[in-house]
C-alpha cells in the first residue's frame, strides 16, 4: 500500500502543478462549456435550454476525462522514461503493478476534480440535470468506465510512443478526433451512418451517451442506449482497453532489455 500511496501522491501533485495539464484538462473544457452554453442554445426552446446545457456540460466533462487519460497519463509515463525516473524505478524493489495502480488512482482523482469543476461551472451557467440517487450512481458508473477506457488508451500510448511530446500530441489527437467523429462535439443525428455505428461501438462515446441519458433524460441523449447489447459492449470494451493497456505497460515499459 505504501508504494501505491507514494505513486498516487507524487503523480497527482505533478498533475496539479503542471499548467498544461490544468489548462487542457480543466480550463479548456470549461471554456467550451461557457462558449457552447451561450452560443449554441439560441434556437432551442426555452424549456429545453437547461437540459441542452446539461448535455453540453456532460460532453465537455467526458472530453476532460479523455484528455486526462489519453494525454496526461502517457505524458507522465514517457516523461519518466525520458528523464531516467523509469530506470531508477526499475532498479528499485517496486512492482509495475503498484506503479500503474498508483498512477491510475491519481488519474482518477484528477478526473474527479476536473469533472467536478466542469459540472460546477455548467451548473452555474444554467445546466440542469435529472438528479436522483439511482440515476446519478449509474451515470457516475459510466463516467468511471470512460476513465478506464481513456486510461487504457493512455497506457498503450505511453508504452509505444517513446517521447513525451509525441505522446501528448498523440493523446490529444486521438481525443479530439474520436470525440469529433463520435458525436461528442457535433450532434449525433448529423453524423453519417458509418460514424453513428462507430459512436455506438466506441466505448467512450457510448458511455458518454449513457451518462447523458441518465443525467438529462432520454430526449437529450443521442439515442436510446438502454439495450443489453449496448451496455454490455460498452462495459466490455472499456475494461478490455484498460486491461490491454495495463498488460502492455507492465510487460513492455518495465521490460529489462
Amino acid at each position, binding site marked *: 500500500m*505504501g*508504494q501505491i*500511496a*507514494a*505513486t498516487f*501522491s*507524487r503523480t497527482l*501533485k*505533478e498533475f496539479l*502543478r*503542471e499548467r498544461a495539464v490544468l489548462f487542457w484538462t480543466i480550463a479548456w473544457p470549461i471554456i467550451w462549456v461557457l462558449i457552447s452554453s451561450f452560443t449554441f442554445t439560441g434556437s432551442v426552446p426555452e424549456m429545453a435550454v437547461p437540459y441542452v446545457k446539461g448535455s453540453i456540460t456532460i460532453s465537455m466533462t467526458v472530453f476532460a476525462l479523455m484528455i486526462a487519460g489519453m494525454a496526461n497519463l502517457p505524458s507522465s509515463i514517457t516523461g*519518466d522514461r*525520458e*528523464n*531516467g*525516473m523509469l*530506470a*531508477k*524505478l*526499475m*532498479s*528499485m*524493489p*517496486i512492482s509495475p503493478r503498484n506503479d500503474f495502480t498508483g498512477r491510475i488512482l491519481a488519474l482518477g482523482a484528477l478526473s474527479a476534480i476536473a469533472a467536478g469543476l466542469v459540472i460546477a461551472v455548467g451548473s452555474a451557467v444554467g445546466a440542469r440535470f435529472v438528479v436522483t440517487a439511482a440515476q446519478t450512481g449509474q451515470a457516475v458508473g459510466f463516467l468511471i468506465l470512460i476513465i478506464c477506457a481513456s486510461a487504457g488508451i493512455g497506457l498503450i500510448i505511453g508504452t509505444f510512443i517513446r517521447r513525451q511530446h509525441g505522446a501528448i500530441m498523440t493523446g490529444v489527437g486521438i481525443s479530439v478526433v474520436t470525440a469529433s467523429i463520435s458525436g461528442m462535439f457535433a450532434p449525433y443525428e448529423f453524423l453519417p451512418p458509418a460514424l453513428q455505428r462507430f459512436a455506438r461501438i466506441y466505448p467512450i462515446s457510448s458511455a458518454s451517451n449513457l451518462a447523458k441519458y441518465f443525467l438529462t433524460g432520454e430526449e437529450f441523449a443521442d439515442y436510446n442506449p438502454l439495450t443489453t447489447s449496448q451496455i454490455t459492449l460498452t462495459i466490455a470494451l472499456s475494461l478490455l482497453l484498460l486491461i490491454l493497456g495495463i498488460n502492455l505497460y507492465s510487460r513492455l515499459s518495465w521490460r*529489462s*532489455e
Partner: protein
Amino acid sequence: MNAIHVENLSKRFGEKEVLKGVNLKIAEGEFYALMGPNGSGKTTLASIIASIRKPTSGRLEIYGRRPEDAKELIGYVPQENFSSPKLTARENLTYFARLLNYPAAETKTLVADMLAKIGLAADADKRVEKFSGGMRKRLEAATALFPGVKILILDEPTTGLDPAARRNFFSLITAAKDKKTTILLITHLGSDAELASRVGLIDNGIIIAEDEPETLIRNHGLEDVITVETAVKSDHIIDTLKELSIDRRLLETEEGYRIYSRDGGRVLAEVARSLEHAGYKVMRLEMTRPSLEDVFFRLTEKTMSEAL
C-alpha cells in the same frame, strides 16, 4: 565479502557487442571508479548491476545473490536528472523512501535527516525546478543513501557541474554514506575517478587496467605532462612542438596541446623559448603530474574526449 562479483559478463545489442567478457570484483565498503569514454560500455555495465538490463551471458552476483533478488541493497543514480521538478526536495525524498517501504512516521524523520546530511535542509520545501544542477545531483544521490542500501551506483553524477560543485558533491556523499556502503562510480573524468580507492579503465567493452589510482599512474611509466595553451591554435604550432617532441608524445586537446616527456623541466623551457621566438601568445604553460586520463591515453592511444 564481495559486494559485486562480475564474471565473464557480455552484453550484445543486436550485432553490437557492448561488453566483452568483463570480470570485476568490488569489496564491501570499497569506492570503485569505472572510467572510460562514451560508448565504452560502462553505463551498460552499471545498468546490468542495477538490474535494469540483463546480460547476454556471464555471471553477476550482489552479495552472493542474483541482482533482481538484491534490489533493496542497491541505490542507483542514473545519469539523467530523474527527480521530479514539480515536487519539492522533501516530497521527492519522501516518495523514494515510501517506495522502499519505510513506514510513514519513520519516513518524516529519515527524510529530514537526509536533507540535513546533504546540505539541503534550508531548501527542503523548494520545488526542484528551482534548484541548481549541483543541488539536484545531491538530492538524487540522497535517494540512494537510505539505510539498508549497501551499494551506491553513481552514473556520471558530476556531468555539468563546475569543479567546486563536484568536490562538494563527493565530500557530502562520502560523509552521508554508511561506512560499509560500497560506491561504484561511473565516470569519464579522471579528476572524479582519482577520488576512488580503486579504478578500472574500460574501453570497447573490456576493462583494460585496474588498480589504485596512484599505482595505475606509476605503473604505466608516465612522464611529466606539459600543458600548452596558446591564444590561437595552428598547424605551425603543432609543427613547432613536434620538433621539440622527438621521442616524446604530443597530443592536441580541446584547449591546446599536451606533451609527455621524461625530461619535463628541460622541455618546458624549450617550449617557452620556441613559442616566444615564433611570436605566439602563450596563455598557459605548465608542467603537471600525469592524470588517469593520461594513463588512458597511454594505454589506448585515445583521449577520453575523442569518443565524447
